[in-house]
């Protein structure tokens, strides 16, 4: 069913994402943000309290349960969207110039949501794949807490509340992302 499997345009997806901000505020006074879950999950690890850094010693159950359940919901939504409402073998309709740039990097398998050549269990055994998956994940977890938020917390919630610090963080997100895309990846894969 192509209609079901067709991707949604930006002007449908964006406002729907944006509406989560008032929905969470009005429902529970909660600020939309996801990376705090990384902190909650660390705080929830079954480790003796005294061996945790102070930053992770707090009442995560009352502070974070809603957010962890929210994230669990995202996983369910991802399952429905990927498994039931997408064609996982179809290549993404990205721009021709992006396809050409990826080909220059040797990335030719465009099926699915992640490049199997770089982001997969098999790729994890290679230095480049390990850097992308483990290094990327590490930097996301480290940077999100240092910056006090991620794309949802700063780029959506923070900008919507006209927070200049969030604007700085978002500019930082792009500085880092542009550096990887234009400098690091060509170096790694070129």
């Amino acid at each position, binding site marked *: 069913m192509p209609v079901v499997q067709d991707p949604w345009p930006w002007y449908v997806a964006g406002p729907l994402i944006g509406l989560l901000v008032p929905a969470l505020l009005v429902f529970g006074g909660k600020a939309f943000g996801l990376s705090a879950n990384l902190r909650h999950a660390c705080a929830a690890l079954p480790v003796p309290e005294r061996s945790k850094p102070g930053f992770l010693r707090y009442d995560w159950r009352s502070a974070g*349960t809603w957010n962890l359940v929210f994230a669990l919901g995202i996983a369910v939504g*991802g399952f429905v969207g990927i498994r039931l409402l997408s064609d996982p073998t179809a290549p993404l309709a990205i721009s021709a110039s992006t396809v050409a740039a990826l080909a220059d990097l040797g990335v030719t398998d465009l099926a699915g949501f992640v490049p199997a050549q770089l982001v997969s269990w098999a790729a994890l055994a290679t230095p480049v794949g390990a850097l992308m998956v483990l290094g990327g994940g590490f930097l996301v977890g480290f940077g999100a807490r240092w910056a006090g938020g991620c794309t949802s917390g700063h780029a959506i919630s923070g900008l919507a509340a006209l927070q200049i610090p969030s604007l700085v963080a978002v500019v930082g997100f792009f500085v880092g992302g542009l550096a990887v895309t234009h400098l690091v990846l060509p170096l790694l894969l070129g």
Partner: protein
Amino acid sequence: MQTPTPLYRQADADGAAPPADCVDTPQVAVAEPLAPSAPHVDLPPECADVEQVPEDLRDRALAEGNAPLALAVYGLLGAGLGLVFTKSQVISWFRIYEMFRFESFHMYGIIGSAVATAALSVWVIQKLKLTTVHGEPIELAPKAWGDSRVPGARYWMGGITFGLGWALLGACPGPLVALLGGGVSVMAAALVAALGGTWTYALLRDRLPH
């Protein structure tokens, strides 16, 4: 309507304000001190707050936020977000790569219209002085610039660090979870690495500029 009571205050037990650099997420504004309630958790003396932690957190959370029905709503909202992430291809590594090459409007359209929708909603909430469904005021406190010699150092350096990871992995925390739920199992390794990053940050926190 009864006089709204402040929803949150900093969570340290003695009521002293924590260092300004600890305040970072939007918080409901601190007003008059609340009646003291027995400290119920082993909070560190400072910076226990960073994500908003109200004084009578446990009681409130149990009464409202952690009630099964409330959690079900959060779960449903999350599922909706995961579906939108997926159907709009926000979770795609290729889309992120394309975005950083400025070769498609798609991601910018999504982020831009999301921010516009959220900003308009926040404006309406403030204009109409809307409350939560429990009748509490909704106020967003400003984010702190921090006390580093470089204003906003944590936002610059943390932001750039996050951006490096975002482009390498092709996913930020939300899409990472959506991909994992959709069966891209290698994201489990990325998630463990992200938890390792957060733990490392917690260890180094005192030595990093904020």
